[in-house]
């Protein structure tokens, strides 16, 4: 094996050895999560199939989902920060390295597309075509489109940022038309679509010839890919390689500006801004709240079903918000600043309670469609749940962490 290929294999092996350690812990400790997800999905399918009229075109639901999955085709290069300095002089010898990266990305993303397609299969069979031949034919065509997207994304990585954005928009438009066509909604004739696809491939071949490797972009994209994995693992445990990504969230932070600047509020001030600005935490929080709200809105007024979805959505957010403590608990300035001894514990508990109770209220407002009694009951349930998680449960976790620290 030549040294370049060996370098690539070593890096992939290093990443997977590390990733498997985390995945093992997640699978052993949280084996029930996929099961709960499957139950929720099965329930949702059942409900969707029941409430949506027969004449409704399901392709309009499947196509946007698959367009996102196909357009997002990042190439994992396993490039490291010092590479632009050390590998740049031998750029012309790196063909094998990047070819392996391209193949790896195509295979991994091909598998994920297959699983996604498999999850959507009940909808496909029920509403688009009952034939498994049609299903696999559609999948093979989509796989071809996916792989051409991986190749296109690799070519785009050589372009400046603005041009990349424009290309992604164009690419997703064509992908959307292809997906619609495969789900029997032909907005444009098949021959025209094929011609567009071939033209698009030829165009990207031209891009390849006119451009060269954009090292800073490769480093940034690779760091983002790694950060995504570690940010997922961070949900469940402490991750040393985790790099926090920050989003300013000016509008949301404005809501916090009424906190009085008193020593006893110091950590409430710090932690509330932290949770809002940690991109992964706040994005998951908003997503889980919105998904919870949409589910509750679409659900029939059944007490057990609504309570399960309500508590599941709250509990998912509680887990990820509680885990944010792991990265907040170690701060250099906490040792220097003269804040009261219990400021950290109280500050985090208040922020956790605020976030969870706010989610409960928002989801309860959605339930007001079933009557004011529903609204009041679920606000109370949310209040109880948020208190239980923030004070007795989180309190114990913080006490344990602080004891270990001293």
């Amino acid at each position, binding site marked *: 094996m030549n040294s370049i290929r060996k370098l690539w294999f070593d890096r992939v092996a290093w990443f997977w050895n590390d990733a498997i350690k985390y995945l093992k812990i997640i699978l052993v400790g949280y084996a029930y999560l996929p099961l709960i997800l499957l139950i929720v999905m099965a329930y949702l399918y059942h409900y969707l199939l029941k409430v949506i009229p027969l004449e409704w075109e399901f392709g309009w639901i499947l196509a946007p989902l698959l367009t996102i999955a196909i357009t997002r085709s990042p190439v994992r290069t396993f490039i490291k920060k010092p590479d632009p300095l050390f590998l740049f002089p031998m750029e012309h010898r790196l063909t094998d390295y990047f070819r392996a990266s391209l193949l790896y990305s195509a295979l991994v993303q091909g598998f994920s597309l297959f699983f996604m397609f498999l999850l959507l299969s009940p909808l496909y069979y029920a509403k688009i075509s009952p034939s498994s031949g049609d299903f696999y034919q559609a999948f093979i065509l989509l796989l071809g489109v996916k792989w051409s997207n991986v190749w296109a994304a690799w070519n785009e990585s050589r372009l400046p940022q603005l041009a990349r954005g424009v290309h992604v928009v164009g690419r997703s438009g064509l992908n959307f038309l292809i997906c619609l066509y495969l789900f029997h909604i032909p907005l444009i004739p098949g021959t025209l679509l094929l011609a567009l696809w071939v033209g698009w491939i030829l165009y990207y071949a031209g891009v390849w010839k006119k451009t060269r490797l954009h090292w800073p972009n490769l480093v940034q994209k690779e760091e983002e890919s790694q950060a995504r994995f570690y940010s997922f693992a961070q949900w469940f445990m402490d991750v040393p390689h985790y790099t926090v990504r920050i989003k300013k969230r000016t509008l949301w932070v404005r809501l916090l500006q009424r906190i009085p600047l008193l020593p006893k509020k110091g950590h409430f001030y710090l932690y509330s801004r932290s949770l809002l600005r940690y991109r992964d935490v706040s994005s998951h929080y908003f997503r889980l709240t919105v998904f919870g709200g949409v589910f509750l809105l679409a659900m029939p007024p059944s007490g057990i079903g609504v309570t399960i979805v309500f508590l599941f959505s709250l509990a998912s957010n509680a887990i990820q918000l509680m885990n944010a403590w792991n990265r907040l608990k170690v701060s250099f300035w906490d040792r*220097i600043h003269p804040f009261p001894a219990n400021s950290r514990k109280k500050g985090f508990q208040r922020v956790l309670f605020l976030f969870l109770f706010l989610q409960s209220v928002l989801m309860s407002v959605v339930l007001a469609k079933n009557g004011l009694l529903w609204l009041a009951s679920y606000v109370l349930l949310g209040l109880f749940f948020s208190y239980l998680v923030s004070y007795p449960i989180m309190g114990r976790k913080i006490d344990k962490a602080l004891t270990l620290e001293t």
Partner: protein
Amino acid sequence: MGEVQEPILKIEHLVGGYLKRKPVLHDINFEVHSNEIVGLIGLNGAGKSTTIKHILGLLEPVEGTIRIHGISRQEKRELYQSKLTYIPEAPIFYEQLTLWEHLELTAMAYDLHESWAETASLLLQEFRMEKMKHWLPETFSKGMKQKLMIICAFLARPSLYVIDEPFLGLDPRAIQSLLALMDKRKEEGSGILVSTHILATAERFCNRFVLLHEGRILLQGTLRQLQQQTQLEQASLDEIFMRVTEVSRDE
């Protein structure tokens, strides 16, 4: 400086380091008084940063005591910490807070009077950071990050400022501003402990020096006292330092 006064910082017989069984500081004794700047100087690995970590409370002494206004950190943590601010050698900041939010947090930590915002504006102006006040520090240059640390430390008015290698990454104008600020706070009654390698500058602004070498104090006193102790009349701090560390190596 001749009159006897209660020191702000008093370190007595400090033995310490990262491992209890293997201390790197041996019997350290020195004081920092009101209205004075003390330079903590020494080669790399002499024990300057370890001494500072002990003062800040990041390391626990194996033996000896560290007191600020007679209070040790072990007795009254909050009170002890409220008497000092710190500027680290490499900027350490909250990446999730803007510059102004760092200042608000500092104001909360030290329970500053409402007029802190005026002081903050003056400091921002002095260090030419007004435009960046609502920026997140990850977009700052190294010098700007260091200025953020300086502004936070000087926003409060503690008895003791602990400053580790303050000039790294600063432009000449910012160095002048920092020196002027240190001088002003010294005149107002604070004590300042500065660890630095830039001896020519230290000679100009420090009133006394503590020369550390391999975890022990080799010399301490004013420049005049150091000259007398080493019998190097007219020698600069640089020359004294070179001679003393050279002699110590030969021994």
